[in-house]
């Protein structure tokens, strides 16, 4: 009995540091965010007061916020699918026996370890009309110059391309690890049965990769809502909000408009969106995942 109690205390002592940190930096801030979303931002002239759901009504009526949500949904879909697809392809490639595969693996992984701000400064000069790398190639091939980041039609897709480039290598590492865990007997057995390479991938490799895919897709989803570093350098959400994303707009509300309550409101909405998306993903994937 006494021994049992002691181990209880011991267990609690062990998780206390983590609990304190989680509480201080995750749970308490989330809770105060929720609370402050029901108040107006206080200044000397207009002190903070309870306003109920007024901030939420404002948000749902805010065309910039709605545009940011739509942009973000497209940004999520258009970054997740290609980067996961690419990651699998790259992992399969560098898992096979090719010459210099350490070099190739490193090359694929390099974008991941570069800081996003530095990378954005490089891409800024890729995309710059006329003097940029992309335009110089295009002009030499006889195409016209294109104002990649200055055109509402192209700007968001330009950002998406950078994100895919940055993330695919990161996800590749997970797939590579998973591929190396697939027992070689399976391949031998498939060979004996005469299964084609494609059939083997579709029926054996891909299903075995499913747990990793869930992990990667959830990570990619979170990233597509939280990775906005490149906006600061490349577009600042422009032109005319064509590349504005939710988190960047939250930043603007908090630090450029100095309206922390409104930023809190948008944060709560973002949390709701993320919660819904994750639940849907878990439910959808759960049926198709084969855990060993």
């Amino acid at each position: 009995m006494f021994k049992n109690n002691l181990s209880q205390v011991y267990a609690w002592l062990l998780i206390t540091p983590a609990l304190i940190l989680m509480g201080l930096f995750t749970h308490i801030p989330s809770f105060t965010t929720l609370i402050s979303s029901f108040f107006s931002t206080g200044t000397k002239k207009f002190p903070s007061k309870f306003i109920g759901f007024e901030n939420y009504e404002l948000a749902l009526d805010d065309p910039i916020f709605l545009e940011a949500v739509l942009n973000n949904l497209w940004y999520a879909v258009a970054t997740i699918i290609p980067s996961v697809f690419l990651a699998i392809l790259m992992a399969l490639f560098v898992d096979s026996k090719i010459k210099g595969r350490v070099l190739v693996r490193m090359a694929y992984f390099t974008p991941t370890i570069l800081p996003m701000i530095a990378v954005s400064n490089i891409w800024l000069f890729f995309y710059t009309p006329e003097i940029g790398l992309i335009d110089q190639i295009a002009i030499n091939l006889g195409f016209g110059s294109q104002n990649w980041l200055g055109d509402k039609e192209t700007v968001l897709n330009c950002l998406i391309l950078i994100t895919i480039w940055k993330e695919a290598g990161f996800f590749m590492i997970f797939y590579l690890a998973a591929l190396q865990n697939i027992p070689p007997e399976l391949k031998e057995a498939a060979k004996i049965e005469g299964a084609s390479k494609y059939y083997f991938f579709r029926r054996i490799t891909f299903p075995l990769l499913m747990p990793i895919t869930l992990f990667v897709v959830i990570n990619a989803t979170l990233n597509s809502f939280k990775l906005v570093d490149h906006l600061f350098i490349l577009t600042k959400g422009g032109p005319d909000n064509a590349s504005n994303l939710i988190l960047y707009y939250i930043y603007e509300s908090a630090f450029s408009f100095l309206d922390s309550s409104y930023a809190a409101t948008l944060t709560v909405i973002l949390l709701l969106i993320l919660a819904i998306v994750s639940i849907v993903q878990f439910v959808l994937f759960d049926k198709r995942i084969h855990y060993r």
Partner: protein
Amino acid sequence: MLKKIKISFIGLTTIVFVMSFATKLFSIELNMYYPVAVGGPLTKIVDGMVNDFERKNPDVKVNAIYAGNYNDARIKALAALKSGKPAQLSVMFSIDIYELIEQDAIVPFDDLVTSYEDKAWLYSFYPTLMENGVTDGKVWGIPFQRSTIVMYYNKDLFRKAGLNPNKPPNTWNELVSYGKKIKSSTNSWGVMIPSTGYPYWMFGALTMQNDQVLMNGDGNVTYFDHPNVVGALQFWHDLGNKHKVMPSGTIEWGTLRKNFLEGKTAIMWHSTGNLTTVKKNAKFDFGVAMLPASKRRGTPTGGGNFYIFKKSSEAEKKASMRLIKFMTSPEQAAHWSMATGYMGVSPASYQTSALTNYVKQFPPALVARDQLNYATAELSTFQTGRVRKLLDDAIQSALTGNKTPKSALKGAQKNAEKLLKRYK
């Protein structure tokens, strides 16, 4: 063993005691945040000036803290204020004035100047540079790193196009016709006006040239849908879409200087804060001129002012005043101007021998000052972040062809009125 510990303990306490005495020698310690918005080794220059000040004022210790761009500087200063460990003074965006007043963060300089001499000092700066620092009949900001927009032009390209390299365009019409000539006879664009980063700032120049300001002096009325303002945006739009002397779409603030230095455009509009960098890097003959006129000449001022925070002791405020007076004194202002390209903030700074000699060798350094005669305040209102974004978005939506200038500006005006209603 015990003895050893005792001795080292005594030793330690003496050291602590001596050190605390030594810090007492600096009877006052000041924290100062300052931003850097354009290229160049500005931090070194600021540190040098602060060291000079400390040498002459041994009782004051100044921690000059580089705080990122203007936005970051404001965030850091306000965060420090809330955490109870505030800075005593700071260089911040001149247009932050209304936000800072609304947050009850700063004190007017009128409350700090007592002597006749100090009061005169308040009026020793260029009046147009004071516009963004004065509201409600009081002075809240003292100009420090201040700029205007000027026109940089590539004289080699002008020659190639058969234009007189010493006659930059004086009017909007000339800007268009020169631009067409340059575009047809060289491979370069006629002109580039940046429309990301600070579109409202560039637009402030165009509207002033069209003889209309963007807001009133109390910061609670905007004039975004005034016909002259609409006309200014129409002209900006037409440069790219009708006259085709400028690329269409938005033009990136961050890469524009490179465009100019590579000869991709014959003219760029940019901050004077770039002057020293352009001078160092241009491989061609370049000139600097005032912006062209439509109904008149015009440019907004820009840049950062000194503010003193409310949450500091009387002694700290006095010491801050001494620091600000030193940093804006004619000699220091002249030194600052030569090192950066920012303006000398007072007429007296241009009478120092250093700056007189410098402008003799390098006349472009005078353009910004001469243009001050036609300058106006930079867009700054209550709720300034939101109001500015309204205008920025309107400008970009017109330049990218999504809305007509008129409907874009009408929408911005309507929303700005909604935001400013409670400040009247």
